[in-house]
Structure formats: structure tokens, C-alpha cells
């Protein structure tokens, strides 16, 4: 949801809707809802993830000041540990009652090579700082995720991605990595040195050790212009191959209970500073209020909702690539994402929208659909298969379980692979059928961590470790 004008229109519609329905504009649906906290000053400090559903009280928080200090720590005892990243994952990759490792001190660009347009980067670097840091060397990542709060290490461990039929996940840009193993070695890995470890570690789930730095294959810094417009979903799906191929990045959001979609095409531009519409990350709350009020109007409500979306104006954002590709997300949510084969994407989406309508699920959070290029990373969701990633969200203050449980079986019918950092219910037996290199990954993991120092409850379930 972008555009100040759009927000103004939403406000106007809400005021009109409230008046027509005899409701106060300060009704429950308008209010942010805080997390119901369970910590008070003086108690042991918990760790919690971004959305608040994953939590633990670690015995130790380890923040090594250097790579050497991290390796020494790993040698110093046989304690269990988990690398924590920025805590943005919705799945249980991080929680541990033992030790959590934070690489905040290992942050920034170490070196950059202008000839090969590559850079060596500490994995504790937050993505939102990586863009400007690479730009200082005239470089940029070819693609970036929609959210940039994560650490680079966390994003790589989960095969985090953006959108673009010719663009792979962040993991696919790694040409070398340095892995601090549970045994206390520092392995430098690439396609030739420790090649199997390299293929496994580019998307590692944090199960192989702690990756301290990587070499990224970048490109010259560039600018993008993002154009968003509301369109008919049927027309969009009919024209999807063209949109996919005609734009550097193309993604869209489908609106449950509506026949409208928000199409977002992003392309390179050599224009200078252009009029830029700022992101409006809280517009989604206004959409929720509009949905609730129109839904309460018997007979005509959903038609009003649909008509309102249909008449939204288009918008445009422009700027440096990293500033356009990422969006601030200040309304928290929980998320499930599966990647299905690219050609099956539209059919899978239609099945999801039909299920929401058939069950009359009260869902208004738009469904995000993105194309991603195939790659050769063993546990990437895009391994040897071009993907169509479908993300469903629920507001953080609402129960995500009934919605996600209703939709997840649809993903399974389409041989979907779950995003490692997002919610899903698959176990090792079912995941193994989705990845041709599954047993290779398990073998490498066992060789690096035979005692299971890095295995928490979630990894035990999904890896069968």
C-alpha cells in the first residue's frame, strides 16, 4: 500500500463509512493493539522475534567483537548455541535456552573489488545499512527483499529474496563464505574449496555453524522507479507472462474478497531525482478498518469495498535501488510463504482466494505474489526450479492459525516449498521430498556438528536431527 493520496482517500472513505453505519471513527478496528507483554523490569530478559510469537530466555547472549573471538568461544566449551540474526524470522529457527550468538559487532563492508563488482561483507550487517554501504563503493545488490530489517546472515540462512523472474535469492549472490564451525575451525568456502560445505551453507538455516562473512557478486549502483496501479485480477493473471518478462521486477498483491489486485512494476531509470511518493506503512490499518466496516453492511458491503479498491490512484516511487526495493514495515504481522513452481502460481493463487471466499474467512491482508529465478543452492526454495512465491499474512494482533491452517494444504497440492524463516508445519519427512539435495545437506550438517550443538527444537523437527 503506497501513496499519500491513497491514504487520504481511505480516510475519506472511512469517515463516510462510519457516518453511514452510525459508527464512531474511534472504533476498535482503528486502534493499534499492543503486544500483551509478559515481562516487567527486574525479570530475566527474554529474547523475542519481530512479530512476538517466538520467544526464549537464553542463558547467555554472546556478541563477539571479532571473528577470532567467535572462533575462540566455539572452542571454549561444548555448549549449545544458535545464531540469532536480527530476529525477523517467524519460524522457530532462533529460540534456545542455551546461548544466542549476535554478530552486531561484525558489521559493514570489509573490502570491495571494483573490477569484479564484488564485495566482502560481514554477515552481522543489517540489510538496511548494506545498500548505502555498498553504494559508497559504487556497487549494489542486484535485488533486495521487501523488508530490510534483517541481518545479511539471517537473510542468507533463509534464502530471503525479492521479486524478478531473472533475479535469484540473496543466497544465489554469494560466491564465497567464511564459516566458523561448531568444532572451532574457520573454513573459507567457495565452489572449489570445501565445495559441499559451500553449497550447503549458502542457505544453511544456521545449522552448520556461524557464517561470519561472505563475498557478494554485485553490480554497479543503479536507480529504480516503482510504479503501482490497481487492476482487475483476472486481466492481470491473463497478462502475467508479459508483465513478468517486460519488467525487471514485477510483483502483485491480490486482495481477498475483491477482484482487484495491486500491480507493482519496478524498472531501472537513469532519471535524476524524481517526484517520489513516500511509503505509507500504516495504510494497511486503514484498509483493515475499511474492510471491517464494509463487511458489516449486509448485501452491499463487499461491493463497496471492491469498488473502493478499484478506484484507487496509481503511484510512483523512485530512488536508489536499495531505497526503492525495501519498504518500512511498522505494522507487525505473522506470515506464511510457500514457493510453488512458477507456472503453477496463478492456479495456486486462485485456489487460495476461492478457499478464503468459500470459508468466508475475515481476511483483508493483501496476498503478495513474486517471481524468483531458479538457482543451484541446495536448500533454496528456488533450487533448480523457477518459483512463484505466495505470501499470506495476518495482523500480529489477530490469530494467524485458522487462516494459515486453511491455506497451507493448498500449497502442498502444488508442491510448494515453505520459506525457512516463515511459518509452516512441515517436518523432515515431508521436506525431504521437496529437495533433491536434502540428504547431502544432512550429511554435511552431521559432519560439521555431530553433537548437535546448533540443533534447537525447530531444527530437530524440520531436519530430523
Amino acid at each position, binding site marked *: 500500500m503506497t501513496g499519500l493520496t491513497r491514504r487520504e482517500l481511505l480516510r475519506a472513505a472511512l469517515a463516510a463509512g462510519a457516518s453511514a453505519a452510525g459508527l464512531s471513527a474511534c472504533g476498535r478496528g482503528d486502534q493499534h493493539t*499492543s503486544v500483551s507483554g*509478559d515481562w516487567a523490569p527486574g525479570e530475566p530478559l527474554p529474547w*523475542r522475534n519481530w512479530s512476538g510469537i517466538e520467544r526464549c530466555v537464553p542463558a547467555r547472549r554472546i556478541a563477539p567483537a571479532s571473528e577470532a573471538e567467535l572462533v575462540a568461544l566455539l572452542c571454549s566449551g561444548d555448549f549449545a548455541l544458535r545464531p540469532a540474526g536480527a*530476529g525477523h524470522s517467524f519460524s522457530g529457527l532462533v529460540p534456545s535456552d542455551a546461548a544466542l550468538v549476535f554478530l*552486531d559487532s561484525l558489521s559493514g563492508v570489509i573490502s570491495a573489488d571494483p573490477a569484479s563488482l564484488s564485495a566482502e561483507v560481514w554477515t552481522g550487517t543489517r540489510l538496511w545499512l548494506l545498500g548505502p554501504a555498498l553504494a559508497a563503493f559504487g556497487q549494489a545488490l542486484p535485488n533486495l527483499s521487501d523488508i530490510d530489517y534483517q541481518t545479511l546472515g539471517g537473510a542468507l540462512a533463509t534464502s530471503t529474496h525479492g521479486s524478478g523472474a531473472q533475479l535469484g535469492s540473496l543466497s544465489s549472490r554469494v560466491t564465497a563464505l567464511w564459516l566458523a564451525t561448531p568444532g572451532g575451525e574457520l573454513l573459507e568456502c567457495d565452489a572449489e574449496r570445501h565445495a559441499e560445505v559451500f553449497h550447503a551453507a549458502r542457505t544453511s538455516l544456521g545449522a552448520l555453524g556461524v557464517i561470519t562473512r561472505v563475498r557478494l557478486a554485485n553490480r554497479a549502483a543503479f536507480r529504480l522507479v516503482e510504479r503501482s496501479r490497481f487492476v482487475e485480477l483476472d486481466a492481470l493473471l491473463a497478462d502475467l507472462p508479459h508483465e513478468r518478462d517486460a519488467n525487471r521486477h514485477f510483483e502483485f498483491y491480490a486482495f481477498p474478497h475483491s477482484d482487484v489486485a495491486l500491480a507493482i512494476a519496478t524498472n531501472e531509470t537513469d532519471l535524476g531525482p524524481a517526484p517520489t511518493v513516500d511509503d505509507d506503512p500504516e495504510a494497511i490499518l486503514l484498509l483493515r478498518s475499511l474492510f471491517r466496516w464494509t463487511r458489516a453492511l449486509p448485501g452491499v458491503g463487499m461491493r463497496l469495498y471492491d469498488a473502493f479498491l478499484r478506484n484507487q490512484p496509481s503511484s510512483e516511487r523512485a530512488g536508489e535501488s536499495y531505497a526503492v526495493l525495501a519498504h*518500512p514495515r511498522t505494522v*507487525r504481522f505473522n506470515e506464511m510463504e510457500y514457493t510453488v513452481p512458477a507456472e503453477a502460481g496463478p492456479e495456486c493463487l486462485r485456489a487460495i482466494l476461492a478457499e478464503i471466499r468459500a470459508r468466508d474467512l475475515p481476511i483483508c491482508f493483501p496476498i503478495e505474489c513474486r517471481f524468483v529465478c531458479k538457482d543451484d543452492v541446495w536448500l533454496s526454495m528456488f533450487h533448480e526450479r523457477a518459483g512463484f512465491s505466495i505470501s499470506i499474512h495476518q495482523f500480529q494482533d489477530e490469530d494467524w492459525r485458522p487462516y494459515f491452517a486453511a491455506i497451507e494444504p493448498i500449497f502442498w497440492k502444488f508442491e510448494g516449498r515453505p520459506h525457512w524463516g516463515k511459518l509452516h508445519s512441515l517436518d523432515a519427512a515431508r521436506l525431504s521430498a521437496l529437495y533433491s539435495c536434502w540428504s547431502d545437506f544432512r550429511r554435511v550438517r552431521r559432519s560439521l556438528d555431530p553433537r548437535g550443538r546448533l540443533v534447537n527444537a525447530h531444527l530437530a523437527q524440520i531436519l530430523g536431527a
Partner: protein
Amino acid sequence: MRAISRKSARARAKLTCALVCLVAACACGDDRKPATPSPLEPELVLTYQSVCASCHARAGTGAPLAGNDADWSQRRAQGGDALLEHTVNGYRGMPPLGGCGRCSAADLRALVAYMAGIAEAAR
């Protein structure tokens, strides 16, 4: 490796200075009177710029801007304990722990005080 670390440390120090200046500039940009920030320990400056600044130095995210008295005056009135509790548990758009998993309660209290302009004695 040691040489790389020193180089990286220098680069980080330069980046930190630049970002702190940028934050100060952002916070003053719209004529809202800045509070006098509580001093921040050097090791927390990096935490501030890599974690807190992603929202608290970026206008339009809904987060109160660091050092901006108009944004913080009512929040300060709730007291340091309440702000710390909100930070740890997550509050509205702010994630639990303010997104800083490595931070101790004392770190978080200092970061909140810095952004909110709470004097050291009143934390």
C-alpha cells in the same frame, strides 16, 4: 585478518559519526525542539545506528524521532520503567527488544534514555 579488522573498525567509526550527524540533522529538520539527549556509551552508538535508527531516525515510520522533544514529551511522562517495558515486550509498531536481541536491560534503558532525552539521573 587483524589488518582487516582495524580497517573495518575505522570505517565503522567514520560511518557512526556520519550517521549520528545525520540523525541529529533529521531530528532538527522540521523545527521541533530537540530534547537534550542522555549521553550514549560508545559501544551503544553502533547499536543505535544499526538497530534503533532504522525507525527512530527515519521520518514517516510512525516511530518517535530520536531527540525530538515533541515526539517524546508525553512518552517521557510515563517514566523510564514503562518505556523499558514497552521496548522489551514490543509496543505498536516496535518489535520486542526494539529489535536488539543482544541488548541487556541496561543497554535498552540507556538507548531509550538517549532517544527520549531522559537525564541519566532519571532513568
